[in-house]
C-alpha cells in the first residue's frame, strides 16, 4: 500500500456517517419500527378476537334469554270426571275434541264457582284460559275407557296467552282486550295461581312433542322434528362418509394425474360453492318427480343434503390424506405391502382425525340447512307426530329442526316466536353433542408419528 492511494480509501468511510459502536440492548430506529409493527399486529388480532367474542356473547345471550321461556309451561291442574253418557255423546259428534272441551269447561267452571274464588267465574273466561285441552282429554279416555265415571287428575296446558302472562311476555299494561284474552281474565288467573290450580312446570312436551296448529301454540313441541333431523343425518352420514372417503382415496392415492381427474377436482371444488337451494331443486326433480320417492320424507331430505355435504367431506379428506407424510407410504411399500394395504393399513388411520373433522363440519352444515328442504316439502305443518317405526322414520313425512324453527318464526301468535328461540337452543344442543362425539372419536383415533 502506498500513501498516495490511501487518502481516497480512508476518505470513503469518513464521508459516510461513522458507525457508532452500539450496545445490542439499545434499540435502534429500524428495530423499534419492526417491534411497533408487531405490537400493532397483535393489537389487531386481539381486537378481532374481541369483536368475535363480543358477538358470540351477544348472540348466546339473545338466544338463551329469549329461548328460556319456551322451556317452562303453564298447566291447569284439575280433577275431572267424565261419565259414560258424556263420553258416548261426545264421540257421536263430528268435532269430538270440541265437545270434550265444552264438557270440561262446564265442569271446571262449576268446580271453581263452588270453591269460593272471589272473582266471578265465567265459562268464556275459563275457555280463554284453558286453551285447547280437547285432544289430550279424548286421547286419555280413548285409551283408558275403564277410568270413565271416576275422577281423573289432569295437567292440561293453559292457553298460550296465559302462558305468556306467566312468563312475563304479556303484561297487564301492554295487553289489550281481545277474544284471546281479556284483562279481567288475569284477575282470575292470579287467583288460580294462588289456589295452586295454575302452575308453572318444566316443559317436557316442548322437547318431546310434535308441532301443533297455529291456534294451539301451548301444545307445540320440537321433538318430532328432532327425530326428523336425526333420520336425515343418518342418511347423510351413511351415504356421504363412505362415498366421500372412497372418492377422495381414489383421487388422492390411485388416480392418474390427467385432464380428466383435473376436471373432476375442479368440479368438486365448484360444487362446494353451489347455493344449497339448487340442491333442493335438483332433489325435487330427481328424487321426487323422477324416482317417485315420497314427498316431505327425511329420506329425500337426507339424499339432498348428502349431495350438499359430499364436496365438503371430499375436500377435507383429501387434505388430510395429503398431510400424511410420504415416508409412511414409502415404508409400507418398502416392506412389501401392496398399494391398497399401504393406504388402508397406514395412511387412512393416520388421516382419520382429519376425515372425522371434515365429516362433522359437513354434517353440522347440513343440520342447519333450511333452503333445500323448502322445495321438497318439509316446511309447513309437517312434523305432526312421531314415525311409527325405524323404516317409517325415513319415509313418513316429517320436518327438520331448522325448517320447524323457520315455520314457527312466521306464525302470528308471538308464543311461536318464543318456541322458535327455544328450538334454536335445542338445535345448538344437538350440534354441540355431535361435536363432542366427534372430539371423542378423534381422540381415540389420533396417532402420532
Amino acid at each position, binding site marked *: 500500500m502506498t500513501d498516495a492511494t490511501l487518502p481516497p480509501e480512508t476518505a470513503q468511510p469518513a464521508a459516510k456517517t461513522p458507525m457508532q459502536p452500539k450496545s445490542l440492548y439499545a434499540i435502534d430506529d429500524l428495530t423499534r419500527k419492526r417491534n411497533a409493527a408487531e405490537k400493532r399486529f397483535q393489537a389487531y388480532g386481539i381486537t378481532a378476537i374481541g369483536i368475535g367474542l363480543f358477538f358470540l356473547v351477544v348472540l348466546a345471550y339473545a338466544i338463551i334469554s329469549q329461548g328460556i321461556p319456551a322451556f317452562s309451561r303453564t298447566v291447569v291442574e284439575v280433577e275431572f270426571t267424565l261419565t259414560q253418557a258424556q263420553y258416548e255423546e261426545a264421540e257421536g259428534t263430528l*268435532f269430538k275434541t270440541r265437545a270434550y272441551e265444552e264438557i270440561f269447561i262446564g265442569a271446571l267452571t262449576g268446580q271453581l264457582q263452588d270453591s269460593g274464588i272471589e272473582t266471578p267465574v265465567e265459562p268464556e273466561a275459563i275457555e280463554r284460559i284453558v286453551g285447547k285441552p280437547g*285432544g289430550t282429554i279424548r286421547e286419555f279416555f280413548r285409551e283408558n275407557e275403564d277410568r270413565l265415571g271416576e275422577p281423573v287428575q289432569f295437567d292440561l296446558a293453559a292457553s298460550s296467552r296465559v302462558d305468556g302472562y306467566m312468563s312475563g311476555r304479556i303484561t297487564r299494561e301492554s295487553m289489550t282486550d281481545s277474544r284471546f284474552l281479556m284483562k279481567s281474565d288475569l284477575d282470575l288467573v292470579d287467583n288460580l295461581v294462588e289456589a295452586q290450580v295454575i302452575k308453572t312446570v318444566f316443559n317436557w312436551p316442548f322437547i318431546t312433542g310434535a308441532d301443533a*296448529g*297455529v291456534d294451539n301454540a301451548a301444545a307445540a313441541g320440537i321433538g318430532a322434528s328432532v327425530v326428523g333431523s336425526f333420520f336425515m343425518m343418518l342418511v347423510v352420514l351413511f351415504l356421504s362418509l363412505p362415498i366421500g372417503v372412497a372418492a377422495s382415496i381414489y383421487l388422492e392415492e390411485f388416480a392418474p394425474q390427467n385432464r380428466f381427474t383435473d376436471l373432476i377436482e375442479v368440479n368438486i371444488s365448484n360444487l362446494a360453492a353451489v347455493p344449497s337451494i339448487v340442491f333442493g331443486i335438483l332433489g325435487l326433480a330427481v328424487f321426487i*318427480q323422477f324416482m317417485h320417492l315420497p314427498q316431505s320424507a327425511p329420506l329425500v331430505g337426507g339424499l339432498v343434503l348428502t349431495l350438499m355435504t359430499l364436496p365438503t367431506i371430499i375436500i377435507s379428506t383429501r387434505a388430510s390424506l395429503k398431510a400424511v407424510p410420504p415416508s409412511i407410504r414409502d415404508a409400507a411399500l418398502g416392506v412389501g405391502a401392496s398399494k391398497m394395504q399401504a393406504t388402508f393399513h397406514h395412511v387412512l388411520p393416520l388421516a382419520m382425525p382429519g376425515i372425522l373433522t371434515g365429516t362433522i363440519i359437513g354434517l353440522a352444515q347440513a343440520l342447519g340447512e333450511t333452503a333445500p328442504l323448502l322445495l321438497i316439502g318439509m316446511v309447513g*305443518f309437517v312434523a305432526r307426530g312421531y314415525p311409527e317405526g325405524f323404516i317409517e322414520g325415513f319415509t313418513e313425512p316429517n320436518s327438520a329442526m331448522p325448517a320447524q324453527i323457520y315455520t314457527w318464526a*312466521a306464525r302470528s301468535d308471538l308464543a311461536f316466536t318464543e318456541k322458535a328461540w327455544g328450538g334454536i337452543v335445542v338445535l345448538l344442543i344437538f350440534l354441540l353433542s355431535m361435536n363432542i362425539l366427534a372430539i371423542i372419536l378423534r381422540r381415540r383415533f389420533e396417532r402420532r408419528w
Partner: protein
Amino acid sequence: MKFTTLVSATALAVASTAFVGAAQARDQVQVAGSSTVLPYASIVAEAFGENTDFPTPVVESGGSSAGLKRFCEGVGENTIDVANASRKIREKEIKACADAGVKDIIEVRIGYDGIVFASQKDGPAFTAFEPVDVFNALGAKVLKDGQIVDNPYNKWAEFNADLPDVDIAAFIPGTKHGTREVFEEKVLAVGCEESGALKAMIDGGMSEDDAEDACIAVRRDGKSVDIDGDYTETLARIDTNPNGIGVFGLAFYENNTDKLKVATMNEIAPSTETIASGEYPVSRPLYFYVKKAHIGVIPGLKEYAQFFIADEIAGPSGPLANYGLVSDPELAAVQASVANEETMQ
C-alpha cells in the same frame, strides 16, 4: 376387512330403505299452497287427526302459485292432493292441469280473509282512511291540480288534512303474495278511479288497459316498501318505524292487537262481522282445490275436505272464525258441492 363390511352394510341398509320407501303407499293427505290459507289448514289438519282415525294431513307452505303448480303436475301418489290458494285458480292453470291429466278439480271456498292496514300502537292514528288516500300516498302517478304527475307527496296530510302530518312509509306485500293482487284491485284501482286519475289518464291519450296498469303501479322512491316475507316481517318493520303503516291479514292483526292499531277504511273498522256483511271493502275469498282422481285412492281425502267446511269448523263459531277467518255465508252450498264431488267446468 372392517371398513369394507361397514360400507357394504351401509349400502344395503340405504338401498333397502329407499326401496321400501318407494314401494310404500301414501296414507296421509298431502296439502300445499298459500301461506295465507296455511294457518287455517294447519288448524283443520290437527283437528282432523285428533278427531278421526285418519292420519294427520301434511300441510306445506310455499304460496298459491307454487301450490297450484305442484297440484297440476299430474295424478298419482307422488303429487299433492289438495292445493290451498288465496285467489281463484287461473284459466292458464286449469289448462296446465288438464294437460298433465288433472281434469277433475273440485273447488272449495272456505271463507273470506280481510286485509287491514295497521300502524304501531303508539303511533299516529289513521282514521279517515279511504282507498283514494292509499292511492295518493302510494301510486306511482297521481292526479294533482288536474295534472297526472309523478307522486309528489311526502306526508299524508299533504293530500288529506284529516290524516296525520307524518312521512309516508308503507309496507305492502310483495308481488309474489296473493294479498298483493287484492291490494291492487280493491284499494289502488278503486282509489285511482275515485280520485279521477283513471279518467285523466284515459283523457290524456292512454288506452284503458294501460291506464289500469298505471293505476296499480306503486311508487318506487322508497316510501313504499315491498315485503316478500311473512306478516311477521311487516310487523318487525312497523315495530321500528312509528309512522309506518303495514298491510296485514285480519287474523294476523287480531292476534297482535297489543302491538298494532288498525286503520279504518271508509270509516269502517275491519272485523269478521263488517267483512261478512260487505261493509268493509277489502277482502277476498280463500280456496282450496281437490284432485277428484285421488278421492278413494288416498284415504281420508274427501273426509278432510268435508271436515274442513263443516259448520263446526268453518262456521261462524268454529275454530277458524275464532282465528280470524270470515266464514262464508253460503257455506251450505259449498258443503253440498263437496258432498256431490262437483267439479269445475
